[in-house]
């Protein structure tokens, strides 16, 4: 009988069987690769949701759209995209010293160059700069809206809910799932080939 090695003998089929079993997700190497693919597709989804967030705001000087975050799970094959991330996206700048009320230095020594060179208080600093947690907060209240707000002076109105996250994430995640399917098939072909 002609020996076309591997193709027509049982040994070749044993190798084939091993190749198939290496594709199983219970194999740690395969699992790691698939997690990498999940990360890849989630990044694409994040971009889409961020663009949707950008579209909801006329101007975004604080770059609140950066609050859309991804996470890939360690123990199961999966991940998420959210605006719930409480991790700080950035670091605060140098924090000015706290100036108590009783220690106001409201008077500055003006000079010929003009200007108020008083150092800004903590509160002022907080109000005028946005950090990671704050970005997420902005997106959340834009997404969900607010009830009527009132200050001691008067009604400040309500913010209408945009609900941008639900619609954009639904589309983005579906696309991500389809892409993941394709990527896994390509991975299988590559592993077998």
């Amino acid at each position: 009988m002609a020996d076309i090695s591997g193709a027509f003998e049982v040994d070749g089929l044993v190798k084939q069987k091993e190749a198939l079993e290496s594709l199983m997700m219970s194999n740690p190497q395969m699992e790691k690769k698939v997690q990498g693919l999940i990360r890849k597709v989630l990044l694409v989804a994040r971009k889409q949701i961020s663009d949707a967030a950008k579209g909801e705001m006329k101007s975004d000087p604080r770059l609140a759209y950066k609050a859309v975050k991804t996470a890939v799970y360690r123990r199961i094959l999966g991940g998420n995209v959210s605006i719930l991330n409480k991790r700080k996206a950035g670091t605060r700048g140098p924090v000015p010293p706290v100036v108590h009320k009783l220690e106001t230095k409201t008077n500055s020594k003006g000079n010929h160059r003009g200007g108020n060179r008083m150092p800004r208080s903590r509160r002022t600093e907080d109000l005028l700069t946005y950090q990671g947690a704050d970005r997420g907060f902005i997106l959340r209240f834009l997404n969900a809206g607010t009830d009527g707000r009132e200050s001691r002076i008067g009604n400040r109105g309500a913010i209408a809910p945009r609900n941008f996250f639900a619609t954009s994430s639904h589309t983005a995640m579906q696309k991500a799932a389809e892409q993941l399917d394709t990527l896994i098939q390509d991975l299988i072909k590559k592993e077998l080939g």
Partner: protein
Amino acid sequence: MADIISRLKLESGEFDSKLKRAGQEMLAYSEHCKSMGLQMGYANKDAKEFAKALGDMKTVSQTARGKLNELTEVFTNLKAMYNQMTDDEKQNTFGKGLAASLDKLKTRIDEAKQNLNSVNAELGNTKQAEQGATSGIDGLTSALGINLKSLAGWGAALGAGKVALDVVKDAFMQSESNIDEWGRTVKSSEAAYDLFLNTINGGNWSNFFTNLSEAVRGARDLYDALDRLGSVKSNNQAAIAFWQQEVQRLRQMKEEGKDVDEQLTKATEKLRGLQQQAVNAGKVAGTKTIVEVLKNRIAGENVNGINISEGTLKGYAGSITRNGQSVYDNQAKIYSQLTAKARDTRVVSRINAQGVNTSTEESFINLNKLTKEQQKQYLIAKAITEGKSEIKTGIEIYAQALSEEAGSIKEQIKGNRYVLRGASGSGGSSGGKGKVKKDTKLVSGSIADLTEDLKYLQQEQQKATSYEEWETYADAIKEVTNNIKELKGELPSIGGNMPDMKAIGLESIIGQPKPDWKSREDILARGQKSLDKMKTQKFEKQEEKDSKNQQSVAEGVDKMVSGFSSMTTGLEKLGIELPAGMQGVISGIQTVSSILTGISAIVSAIQIITAADTIIPFARGGIINAFSGTLVGNSYSGDNLRGIGPGGQLYGLNAGEVVLNRSQVGNLASQLEGSWLDGVYLDTIITAEDIRLVMNNNGRRTGRGEYVQTNVRRR
């Protein structure tokens, strides 16, 4: 609360279990195939396509020469491939294996050539043997089924695991003992592959291994049956030709008046016997093919292991060959009824690639809802309904055998009639020897001869062993009965059926062979006699309702009379000598038309008038199909409605053909000239939907985008 998190999850449990199962089943399948004498391997995309083509492959050649041609072709292709390989490739296992196979092929070819040479030497036909041994290369997919490109692909893909699992026909590499064994293994590989495909489609693996051996065995039996058919046909060919020649020679001697009855009978029987061998082999092969198809299809679907015996399947095969379409219709009905009965629903949970768990209700066929008998009926009905195209092959083989049988029976009847002529000539004792009169024509005998024929045929019909044989005798009896009636004058002789048309020389015009003048004169004389009779006969007036038909009949007769006149002129121009009786016939018909008052006499005397309403009133045009009880109504070929036009032209029409009158032809012509739209009015209506689509298309094309309607939500 609004969504602020969206998750993606991948469920891999089912994926893993399927992979594991696939690997295990592959090994088990391989082991089982090995035990059947087959081999299994994996294949790349090209090889997969090749294996698919393998399943569609036609039957291997059944003749010795055909097999030799196939071997030669494959050898040439493989040799070419081997020569293209590099030295390294030739040294690897694939190359060495290929070289070994080439050597073995060469040995087989030499053996086949020797076989063919010995057969041809016996027949004295050495030249043909040489030609048969050197056939051209027609393509890569020969009956061996080896695809050159795919083989090269296999060589390149070694060591790589791929996803397709196929049954590989390895008989070429493995079985070199003889050509038949190789052929049988090819056939069994095909059967195994068919069963494999059916099982994959059906999704039931539980019976697969049980049925695999059955499929292989059945395929080998089928191959044997087909092989025997081919062998019988090729081996008997020379013998049949010899005995046919012998029979012709003896008939010729009989016509010359020699006493060869006994030899003629023996020769006819011998010929019949030889032909019957091929017929029997064909019937067996045809039936087996159908049974095999049914068996394989049932095996792939038989989830509950219902026992359906081969005898049952043979019965169905016989029914299909006898009753044809009605069996299919019946089984299709049963199939749809039982499918409706067995339909059930179940809830299936699936995890799709997106990791989403979905439950759906799906419909499936639950055979457990049927009784055992119903399951059996269902399986058979499904196999017959879905296997129509494969069953067709078996039907064709069977039909071929039947037509050969009918032909051989006709030959035998003819031969026996020849013998009988000799017996009646000597005094009427059937089977006895007798001298044949010198001028007696064996074809057109006297009434006494035909009566003897009729008795003989009726006796033989009683002895018939099959329905086809009985039918053949019935046809012959009908023909002889018609001849007797014709001679007795009970049937119209002038312009009656085809023999009378021959008698007046028309077949010379329409290309038929000229009959003998003497017999033509006989018929003309009879015609003249019946016309003379009509002249003196008193005709009774028919009922009122026939008055219209009488007029039509009269018109028809007039046309025919003038046609006859033109025809005689035509015949004279052709130089055909008219017998003396012919003019009398024509004048007789003219006399008839002038005294036309009754229909029945005309019916008996004129060809195309066989019923009172047979004259076709084509004043309004029409389709020839509206005459019940006549030759024309069911006759779609043969130009059986014949007549002579006013200008002497002959016409022959069939049912379903259309005759157009002048105004209809005018309408057609005006349509062809383009005025067919006259009188056609169109209204154009554009809906808002169309406007929207037009706007969107325009927007897309010009880059402005679609016109999207939005609803503004208010809080």
